[in-house]
């Protein structure tokens, strides 16, 4: 087989045929440069999944040994279970799933069938392990959709209902009390001073002489977190959502450092959610259960938004301060806000182009 059509990323060690680079020299993320799309499509016409992607690479002895060593742990386990005369069908299936999951490709580069296959494997794996059935979606970005968000600073009362709803919806780690959203209590007259604001207050709200401002992932159109990822485990989808493939992330936290808005969270320990509190309506790129050592962040509730629903924070807010919608629909409420209210974004000077606007009454 030819390795010209590969769609995964690997170091070019010991291989003769150099690929022509299709990267763009203008460095602009927004929309990308025209003219490459066709080339890329041709490039990935012949696709492979699973361990084909890993094994069907011409490699020299050294890299082959490296590959084998890295996979030895899982491989040995899987092989011993699947070949064992004593283990039952279920544990063989489990081993088979682990094997295939170990060697699957980057979600960004998968075909729809491959996406469905990995989602099916994850659902089955959860079923085998816990006896419970979850539903997991691999729904792609809808055409003619670009998600945007507006936050009314005058309306937010600091109740933090959004934070609670977000934690429950997105199966965030309860032990470390991870939260994607932060509500900053700011003193009137000091402007947007994040250094002097408190995002962990506990008193009756709204407090006299204060206003409230929420931050979360802004789903930048030119996201710095995406540029720094060394393994391309995070990227911007066509509907504008900046997402993470938790199975491809190596946990280097470059993205966390690159984000100027503190939008990203890291799992320092194994995330734990009580079984009865797990939200079983999941998306591969969204609220499926994470593991230790990977990044996560707000996805505008991809499992909800791609189904036409509002994110959990928007639904939970009792004040109507949170507005979500399709930026490409000229009749949407988000467009009306952008066109009729005085809107601004945080640190616009950085050129990150957040799709999260603030406004006041």
């Amino acid at each position, binding site marked *: 087989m030819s390795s010209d059509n590969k769609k995964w990323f690997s170091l070019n060690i010991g291989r003769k045929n150099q690929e022509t680079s299709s990267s763009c020299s203008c460095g602009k993320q927004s*929309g990308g440069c025209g003219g490459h799309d066709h080339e890329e499509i041709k490039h990935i016409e012949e696709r492979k999944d699973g361990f084909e992607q890993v094994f069907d690479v011409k490699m020299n002895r050294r890299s082959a040994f490296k590959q084998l060593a890295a996979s030895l742990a899982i491989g040995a386990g899987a092989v011993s279970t699947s070949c064992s005369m004593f283990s039952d069908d279920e544990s063989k299936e489990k081993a088979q799933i682990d094997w295939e999951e170990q060697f699957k490709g980057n979600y960004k580069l998968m075909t729809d069938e491959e996406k469905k296959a990995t989602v099916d494997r994850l659902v089955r794996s959860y079923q085998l392990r816990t006896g419970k059935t979850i539903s997991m979606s691999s729904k792609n970005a809808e055409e003619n959709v670009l998600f945007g968000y507006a936050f009314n600073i005058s309306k937010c009362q600091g109740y933090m209902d959004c934070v609670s709803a977000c934690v429950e919806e997105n199966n965030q780690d309860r032990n470390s009390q991870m939260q994607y959203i932060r509500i900053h209590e700011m003193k009137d007259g000091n402007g947007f001073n994040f250094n002097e604001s408190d995002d962990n207050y506990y008193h009756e709200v709204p407090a006299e002489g204060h206003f409230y401002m929420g931050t979360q992932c802004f789903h930048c159109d030119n996201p710095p977190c995406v540029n720094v990822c060394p393994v391309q485990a995070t990227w911007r989808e066509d509907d504008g959502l900046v997402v993470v493939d938790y199975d491809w992330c190596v946990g280097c936290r470059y993205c966390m450092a690159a984000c100027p808005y503190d939008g990203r969270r890291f799992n320092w320990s194994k995330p734990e959610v009580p079984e009865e509190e797990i939200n079983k309506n999941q998306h591969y790129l969204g609220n499926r259960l994470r593991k230790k050592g990977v990044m996560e962040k707000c996805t505008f509730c991809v499992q909800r938004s791609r189904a036409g629903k509002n994110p959990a924070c928007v639904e939970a807010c009792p004040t109507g301060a949170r507005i979500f919608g399709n930026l*490409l629909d000229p009749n949407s409420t988000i467009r009306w806000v952008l066109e009729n209210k005085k809107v601004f974004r945080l640190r616009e000077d950085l050129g990150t182009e957040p799709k999260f606007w603030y406004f006041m009454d």
Partner: protein
Amino acid sequence: MNNHSIHRVVCISFIVLLFFSCKHGDGEYHGVTDKIKAKSENYHGTSLSSEPYLEGVETIEITEGEHSFLIPERKSQIKSFACTECHSKPLSQLQSKDGKKAHWDIKLHHANENTMNCVTCHDGNDMNNLKSLTGNSIDFNNSYNLCNQCHTKQFEDWKGGAHGKRIGGWAPPRASMTCVNCHNPHKPHFETRWPARFNTQIIKERE
């Protein structure tokens, strides 16, 4: 061909490649605002709909200016509607010392006494409807028309979608709460209360 000309050809083709590898203006946007503008020019809808999420919510469609959207139906949500079930006689005849008191729990905390009292909105002669400042009848389902007599700015924002919470999803059709779904008309301000959560982990980390 000598070595020189080969070099030249390579150089020139490289420069040409550089120019063509980045077709500006053909799908590239300098900023998200440009992108929204360009991409929404040929907008022809999506396959998504909010309708499944509006099931179980009885709504009515209203059109105000250039905006058309759904709001929750109100009359079926008012416990003691229709008012004329009790208000069969004029108010003066209902008021007596021995009769059972009704609406004893309602105190008006809305504007001041000079501006508002019960009959600013309610019509003693037609209890099943509300009335405007000029005495026109307003249906309970369209009570926003009563509010917008004073709250004109909020009304503009509400029509556009900057004020008032959305029901269902972001996808069309749009359904929004009407004024009285969030504000008690007799006591329209929001109460102070405790936040929904407190993060003890952050406190530990800050120590």
